[in-house]
Structure formats: structure tokens, C-alpha cells
């Protein structure tokens, strides 16, 4: 009994903590949900409802494990029941394995991917402006280096330098969280 309690982390749920979780996890959870739903607006609505429900249960709810784990499971459940409701889960065949059994964010590839993407997104946002803009134009808007050079009226060489600068900054910043992902990636490729 005491042993079991020791394994539970009782998380204080109040207005402040909910707001904190929102800042930390909202975007990440939306992108994660979108991997199931393939509809970003719907995903946002769904994650919003998860947060609204947190307020409802505020007094009664004692979250076991962690806030992160709770949010992850709530969003995932909501996604899966949304898919079931629509009876379109045959279309999401690749996700069927998620319908069975327990799951945790630690072994959820899609969640890991979302996390990596979010880390990366935040890291990119912190790059120097010029560097960030050029990197985004290449990666997000899909322009090639020559097009970026023409658009910004700079040399192709400068574009290359800025992208290299971005890549260098990103790989240094992302070291810890990426290491884990790469490990998972390697493990899954061995399977």
C-alpha cells in the first residue's frame, strides 16, 4: 500500500498549474493529435476540450504519474474515440495498433516525433532572425537556395552559410532530447 502510494506522484491541479501545462504542452498536443486526425482545426478543438475538462475535474481529480502523462493519455483517448465515432478508423489503418492495450508517451513513436518537432520548432524560433527566416523558407516553404537568394536579393553563398549556421545551432541545442529519439529510431529499425 505504502509502496503503491510512493509510486504515485500526486499533482496539484489548480488554475495556475493548468495554465502552465497549457504553455508547455498545448502546441505539442495539437500536433500530436493531428497525426491521428489529419485536421489541425479539429485537433485544436479536441485538445482545448481536454483542457476544459481539467478545470471541471479540478477538485476531484488527483492525477497519478504526471501531468504530462495524463494530458497525453487524455488527448490520445479523445483522438481514438473521435476516429471511432467517425467510423473512419479503417482509413487510419496504420494507427490501429494504438487501439489495443496500455500505452505511455515514452513508447509512443508518434508522440516522440511530435515532441522532437516541437523542440525543433522552439529552437528554430530562437535562431537569429535572418538565419531563422532563411531556414524556414527552405524547410517550411520549400524554396531552394537559389530561389531564396533571388527573393532576398542576396548571394546563394550567403543562403548556404545561413542554413549551415542554423543547422549547427540546432544540432547543438537539440542534443539531449534527440539522442533519445535517435536511440528509439535505431531500435525500431533493428526490429
Amino acid at each position, binding site marked *: 500500500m505504502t509502496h503503491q502510494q510512493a509510486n504515485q506522484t500526486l499533482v496539484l491541479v489548480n488554475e495556475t498549474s493548468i495554465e502552465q501545462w*497549457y504553455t508547455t504542452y*498545448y502546441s505539442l498536443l495539437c500536433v500530436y493529435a493531428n497525426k491521428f486526425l489529419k485536421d489541425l482545426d479539429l485537433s485544436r478543438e479536441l485538445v482545448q476540450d481536454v483542457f476544459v475538462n481539467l*478545470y471541471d475535474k479540478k477538485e476531484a481529480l488527483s492525477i497519478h504519474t504526471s501531468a504530462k502523462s495524463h494530458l497525453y493519455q487524455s488527448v490520445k483517448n479523445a483522438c481514438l474515440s473521435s476516429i471511432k465515432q467517425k467510423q473512419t478508423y479503417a482509413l487510419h489503418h496504420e494507427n490501429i495498433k494504438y487501439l489495443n492495450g496500455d500505452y505511455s508517451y515514452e513508447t509512443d513513436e508518434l508522440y516522440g516525433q511530435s515532441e522532437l518537432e516541437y523542440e525543433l520548432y522552439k529552437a528554430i524560433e530562437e535562431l537569429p532572425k535572418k538565419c531563422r527566416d532563411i531556414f524556414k523558407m527552405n524547410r517550411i516553404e520549400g524554396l531552394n537556395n537559389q530561389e531564396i537568394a533571388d527573393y532576398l536579393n542576396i548571394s546563394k553563398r550567403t543562403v548556404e552559410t545561413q542554413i549551415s549556421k542554423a543547422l549547427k545551432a*540546432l*544540432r547543438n541545442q537539440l542534443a539531449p532530447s534527440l539522442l533519445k529519439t535517435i536511440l528509439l529510431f535505431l531500435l525500431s529499425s533493428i526490429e
Partner: protein
Amino acid sequence: MEDRNQHINEVVLQNVLQGSASAAQEKELNEWLQASDANKALFEKMKQIWSASKQLKEFSEIDEKADWKKIKAKRRAKKNRLGPWLKYAAAIMITMGFSLIYLHENTVGFGKIAQIKTEQEKSELLLADGTKVYLNKNSRLVYPKKFDDDKRLVKLQGEAFFDVKPNANKPFIVESGEAIIKVLGTSFNVYNKVDNSTELSVKTGKVSLKSRKDKDQELVLVKGDVGLLRNHKVIKLKSKFKNQDSWRTRALKFHQAPLTLVLKDLEKHYQVKFENRNQKIKDLEITLAFDNEEIEKVIHQLELLLQVKIIKHKNIYIIK
């Protein structure tokens, strides 16, 4: 050593990631990868960054601030599941309460206020203070059953002639279209035209004609004056009080009046139209009087006087 290696390969790495590396660059990369496991891990990481960064558009599409507001709104909506109905009910009750007060204070037939409305007939009435009002066709007068202590206020649409009972302590005020007409004791004709301009003709005494919007626009008219308020501007007309209340007296009198004016007054009095196609009589001045006569008789007299032929076509009398 390794650091220098990375530095050398920076553009090569990028070209490989972008798929634009030459054969020589590919070869350089392979040699570099074989050199150490650290290099392999680093390149793996860069590949991940490269492919993952392509997926990042979604993040920039999420508006965290707006969505937080949505959560708050959803929460409120949930909290007040019964709330909206109560709110609506309260709003309806309050509105009804104010409506009743408003209706009592301001609405015709509901309490303090009465109205008289004419269509095809004319009307006369005596107000509480002894003022006599003659109301023309298609007009409406709104008046209190009992006047306030400090003023006598009535509202007019259409045309009316007022014979105001003198009372120096209580000005008599007519609101008509854009005009505010203020008197102490006098008689005058108010004509609120279709274009919302208001013509005021003073038969006796002194009258103030004022714009409701622009308080600087005020004209004091005395016996015989005719004023017009149009587009919030007051002007004193050249014409004098003559036949303006013919609709009431049924008598039209003209003394050396230009034909155009005579035709205008006849048009208004009999609600007909004239069209003068005879250039010779255009500038004639006429002295003539009609007393409650039929339009046909009037036409006949005009034909005799002017030595012309007048033909009725639909509702238009054409002078040849």
C-alpha cells in the same frame, strides 16, 4: 581534428541533405562518415532535424493566445449552462419594465399621450390649453392629454394650422421633421413636406423656427413671413402669408400674383398638376378669388380670364 572535419564538410553536408550534392561531395561525405562513429551520429541527427523541420508548419498555424481564450470561453459556457436562460429571462423582464414606462410616458394611446391622424379627411381639435389645431389630410398630430408645467409640446407630421392660446409662461412648441417651432401666442401654418423640409407661415404674432440638429440655425418670423427649414438650414422666403391655410379656409385669394404662383397654390389646394404650354401668358399677374369652389369651376374661370384652353389629361391640366 573532428571539429575541423565538421567545419570542412558543412556545405557538403547541406548539399547532401538537400539532395543536390555532386559525386565528389558524396564521396567526401562517405569518407567523413567512415572516419568516426561520432560523425555518423552527427549526420543522423542532422538528417532528423532536416526531415522533421519540414513538418513544422503546423506549429506556426497554432495560435496559442487565441486558443487559450477559446478554452476560457468554453469553460464559461459550461459553467453557465443554466446561465444563458436566466440572462435572457432577466433581459426580457428588464426590457419589458422599461418598455412599459416608455410606453406610458411617450406612446400614443398608452397613458399621457394622444394622437389624431387624418387620411382623406381633415380634422380640427382643441388642445388642453385651449389652442386650436386644424389638421390637413394625411397628417398626424401627437399631443399630451395634459401639458407639462413649463412647456406645451406637440409633434406634427404633415400639415396643420395652429391658433395658439397665449400663455407667456408656457411656450408652445411644435416639433415637425427637422424643425422646432416655438411660440408664445400666435397663429401660423406648419407644412412638413414629403422631403422632410418644413414650411412655416405666420398669420399673426411672432414665431421662432429652429433646426433640431443645428441650434444656431434659428429664424424669428413675424406676421406675414414665410420661412423654410431644409437640410438643417433655415431661410426666409420671399413669399408672404396668403393662401398657405387655404386647405383650412377653403378660400384662395390672389392679388396681382404671378401665374406660376397661382398654379402652384391651386396644385396644392386641389391636389392636381398643371402644365403651361402657353408662353404668352407665362408672365401674367392675376387677381382672383375662389371660395370653396369645385376644381372644374376654377378651371372654367381661368379659361375665361386667360383666354386659353385647358385640357385635362389624366390628372394633369394642360394649358394651351
